[in-house]
């Protein structure tokens, strides 16, 4: 294993090159999941920091590491956000009377928040299989079929099938959420 500092010292030009080349797309892929630009940048920083610490020396295969890691870390960020929200909601609910709570449930702002596309998408992405979330984030993050195939190490001919399945699953989850 190579320490992060060692990697930075010994392979800084390669790391810098990789960073400058891929950072924008890493942010874009992360944004498909987080729907929050600042959070997407945080995810990207985390991804590159982990890459540096991972001691990887084969920069030619870096993209196959970076983008799955981006999706993984972004989904984890969503999970953390959801848990925070749930905790805050619980604490909030405990402090409110049943009447207040009922009133809040029909509050237009609450309904608006529930129907917010970003929130719906985040919820759905955590419910569909992570491999579906992965291919959706890559495709709508700007990857071509060939690039997705190279990144995920699968045949390009399979991408359409997986993408169609993922889009179907996403739509189903969002419809289920909005019908509640």
């Amino acid at each position, binding site marked *: 294993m190579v*320490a992060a*500092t*060692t990697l930075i010292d010994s392979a800084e030009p390669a790391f810098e090159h990789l960073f400058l080349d891929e950072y*924008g797309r890493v942010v874009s892929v992360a944004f498909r999941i987080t729907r929050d630009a600042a959070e997407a940048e945080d995810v990207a*920083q985390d991804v590159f920091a982990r890459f540096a*610490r991972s001691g990887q020396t084969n920069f030619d295969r870096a993209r196959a590491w970076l983008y799955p890691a981006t999706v993984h870390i972004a989904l984890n960020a969503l*999970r953390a956000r959801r848990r925070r929200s749930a905790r805050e909601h619980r604490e909030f609910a405990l402090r409110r009377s049943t009447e207040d709570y009922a009133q809040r449930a029909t509050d237009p702002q609450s309904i608006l928040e529930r129907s917010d596309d970003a929130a719906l998408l985040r919820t759905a992405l955590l419910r569909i299989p992570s491999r579906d979330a992965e291919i959706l984030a890559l495709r709508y993050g700007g990857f071509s079929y060939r690039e997705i195939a190279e990144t995920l190490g699968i045949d390009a001919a399979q991408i*359409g099938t997986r993408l169609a399945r993922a889009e179907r699953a996403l739509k189903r989850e969002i419809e289920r959420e909005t019908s509640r």
Partner: protein
Amino acid sequence: MKHLDSGELRRMLDEPQAFSDQARLHAATCEQCRARAAIVAADAAHAARIFAGEVSADAGEAYLRARDFVAAPRGITRWYRPLAAAALAAAFVLGLLFTPLGGYGRSFLTIFEPRQFQPIEVSRADLQDLHLLPQADDVGIQRVVRKPVRQSYDSITAAQRRTGFAVLGPTVLPAHFGVVRSFFTMAPGEMTFTFSAAKARAFERRSHKSLPPMPRALDGTTVRLQTGYVFNGHYEATTSQAAHPQTTHKRSRGTEFFELIEAQSPHVTSTGASLDTLERYLLAMPNVSPQLAAQIRALGDIQNTVPVPVVIDKQTARRVTVNGAQGLAIGDNTGLGAGVMWEKNGMIYVVAGPLSMNDVMAVANGLR
């Protein structure tokens, strides 16, 4: 021509040039394919709408931030050392806190002997909340009856003479390992903790925090923790950096290592209140989340189960077979660190470090 499948129809939306003229013509004229293409297109349009949005990022500025962050001093140990000591930490701390909590309230005197490890998912928020729990001294009296003494040795053989049990040594080491290593033993220790309602009330007055009322039967109950001999082997890789004293600073952050722990199973005994009472009281503490409490309650064989916290978005856990025993493997999500723990013949074993899971498992399975 045969009909196009949904994958082909989907790709045709994005990359029609990837298909032959014949396939495109078929897709445009075949009613069956067109009907299915309409469904696929509707799903794709829905996804495109909901994923739409641009985000701009200044890679140059971000690189400077990333470089500072990556190069910042940071302990390489992270959670590996705590994990390496998990057999102790889990048994000593969680064991003390939670083990008497399960449905083992039938006997007056309870004995805890770990036989298996059970992952408990905790969030970072859970961990932060647990730090807000009252300290042990706030609700009772701790007493170290016998403090474990640590001693270092040059060889496993010498350490083994001290522990009295057969220490297993690794027969398989990851590449570059083998020369830099050190061995330690811990002598048996004993600690007691006695619950005190008076102290709990004093804490409430002092801190203006509310604790669950301590049941009368719990007031005065003593929990006793006894540990046996512990062996700890610390193995480091021999790197080129390690050979150069001037790079000591880097080596402290960059050296690969792993910890091997072999410990006689600790025992926890309890007198006074039933363990059901203990469970209700401790899990009612503020800052113990309902999810965490539910997981603790759901542990099956609590008398023999060590709950091992697994941070949800940082670590993963899976059951493994190690040296013929059932164990629990914990991995860092990034693949940068791993650990495995198991119990066999009254001994607890842990191998952990900033290595891949494969390396850790190879070391663990190679212990002889």
